[in-house]
């Protein structure tokens, strides 16, 4: 009896500590985004309001120092994200299919797999530095196209893994049954494999989209100062105005949480670790 009371209290303490450390940093972001005046050491802001939200969203005009308008940055990130999803999926889906379903000599397959594991295993920042040097020569630094290329590299590896794992989970008998009654390989793929693997492919596309939306390091080297995506806007606001930075951070975390809740059950745990380097 006494033991179970002790156990319950320990559980409650764990829960409170857990909730505090999980949510207090988020709460800090939320409060700062609506704090108009907050002097130390008051527990809560003296004056709250949505002024910074309205200014950041471009609804009211802003004269504040370090003001940002996140709408253009958001649209830019959205546009880059959509293009990156299209290109990445167009390249990754065939590659994932070939790796999972078709015969490739063991040695070559091994080399390809190593190639696709390297970016996850080694730090990517030095790669971006040299990519920037490469892009300098061909005039891609500071351009949207350059940034799209960077996001493509970052997300392609994950997209290939996820699509390959989706395709390999489909029993080969299905496609072979279709082919035995005369369907071509392409037709069997389009009519059988593609519909079954749709959830996995959609999950992969969403993952790619979020990777592009959140990408920081590559854009920092290849894109700045001309291509200001949402994370770059957050970075520059962070040094000058805490309210604008908080608003931008919240806008950036909403799609991440929303989409990931929807797709996480389609993804293997290992892939999630790559989010938002």
């Amino acid at each position, binding site marked *: 009896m006494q033991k179970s009371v002790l156990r319950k209290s320990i559980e409650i303490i764990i829960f409170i500590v857990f909730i505090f450390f999980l949510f207090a940093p988020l709460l800090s972001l939320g409060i700062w985004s609506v704090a108009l005046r907050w002097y130390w050491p008051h527990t809560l802001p003296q004056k709250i309001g949505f002024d910074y939200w309205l200014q950041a969203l471009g609804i009211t005009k802003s004269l504040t120092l370090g003001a940002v308008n996140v709408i253009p940055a958001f649209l830019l990130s959205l546009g880059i994200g959509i293009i990156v999803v299209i290109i990445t999926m167009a390249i990754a889906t065939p590659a994932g299919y070939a790796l999972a379903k078709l015969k490739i000599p063991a040695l070559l397959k091994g080399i390809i*797999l190593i190639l696709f594991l390297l970016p996850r295993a080694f730090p990517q920042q030095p790669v971006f530095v040299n990519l920037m040097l490469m892009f300098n020569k061909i005039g891609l630094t500071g351009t949207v196209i350059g940034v799209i290329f960077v996001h493509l590299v970052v997300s392609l590896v994950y997209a290939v893994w996820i699509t390959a794992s989706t395709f390999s989970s489909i029993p080969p008998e299905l496609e072979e049954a279709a082919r035995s009654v005369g369907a071509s390989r392409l037709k069997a793929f389009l009519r059988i494999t593609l519909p079954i693997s749709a959830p996995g492919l959609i999950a992969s596309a969403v993952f790619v989209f979020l990777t592009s939306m959140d990408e920081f390091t590559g854009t920092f080297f290849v894109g700045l100062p001309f291509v200001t995506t949402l994370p770059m806007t957050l970075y520059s606001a962070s040094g000058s105005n805490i309210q604008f930075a908080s608003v931008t951070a919240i806008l950036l975390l909403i799609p991440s949480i929303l989409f990931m809740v929807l797709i996480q059950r389609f993804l293997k745990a290992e892939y999630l670790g790559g989010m938002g380097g």
Partner: protein
Amino acid sequence: MTNNLRSELVVRENETGVGVERPRSYTNILPYILVFPAVMVILLLYLYPFLASFWKSFISKEGVLSLANYEKTLRLYRYDILFTLGVTVLSTLIATVLSILLAVYLRLSKSWLANRIGILYRLPIFLPFVVVAQMMRSFLAPHGIFNLFLAKLDLINIENPLQFFNWTGLTFGFVWKEAPFMILIILAGFQMIDDSYIEAAKSVGAKLPQIITKILIPMNKPTILIAVTLVFCSLIGCFSFPYMLIGGKTPVTITVDIAHRVNYFGDYGVANALGVFSYIMVSFLAIYYIRSMMRKGLYD
């Protein structure tokens, strides 16, 4: 079995007189056509700059082959290299212990509170590091909520708040972001262990510490090692968070030094030498990771 079926299909195609030559040669090169674009992108935009960072680290400012960049790197950034390694090891260690404990709790407790924690803990996994950085900048600031909270509990003097914009805040943020990811992987491993093992251990009088150290951890060693490896490697290479939290201070992580070398000095030689140091730091674990993924099969 599959091969039999396939040869049977070929035979049947022969019988029906469908053109055999063309489809077969087409099938032979089809895999290469399909993987070609993806491999080319990785070769050109990843592997080439990856190898270039080794090569360029040996090219001095005057354009000759030398160790000058390494000499300069060790002279200027010796301490930062150790700092990076120290913070990463510490963060990985804390995150590992914390996540194993929480995963054990979530595996064994069926209470309402445990279920809530089991859902909520995933949140940080989905947040990008930039957002975590901004969060920690305000949460851990000298006049931030955390110091305010400690002052309300009378744990610190409000006139003299704790400073977190150093290795402590960095470690806190790293653990906050990465421990949940480790829990996700480790808990999935724990859940593969059948209840009967735990029940059997209990029936012969095993206490919780024994269940953890004799059953749960040993049976999950590969999973835990993979989690440790992934976290260690991504923390060594993490740029946004240290840059935004302690970017203008010393000591900093070498990712910050690389950015400074490139942005302020245009010194790619030293930047790449620092990059090579970061490769060396992860090398053992990275090779372990690649080998174990190759053995396990990436997507099976």
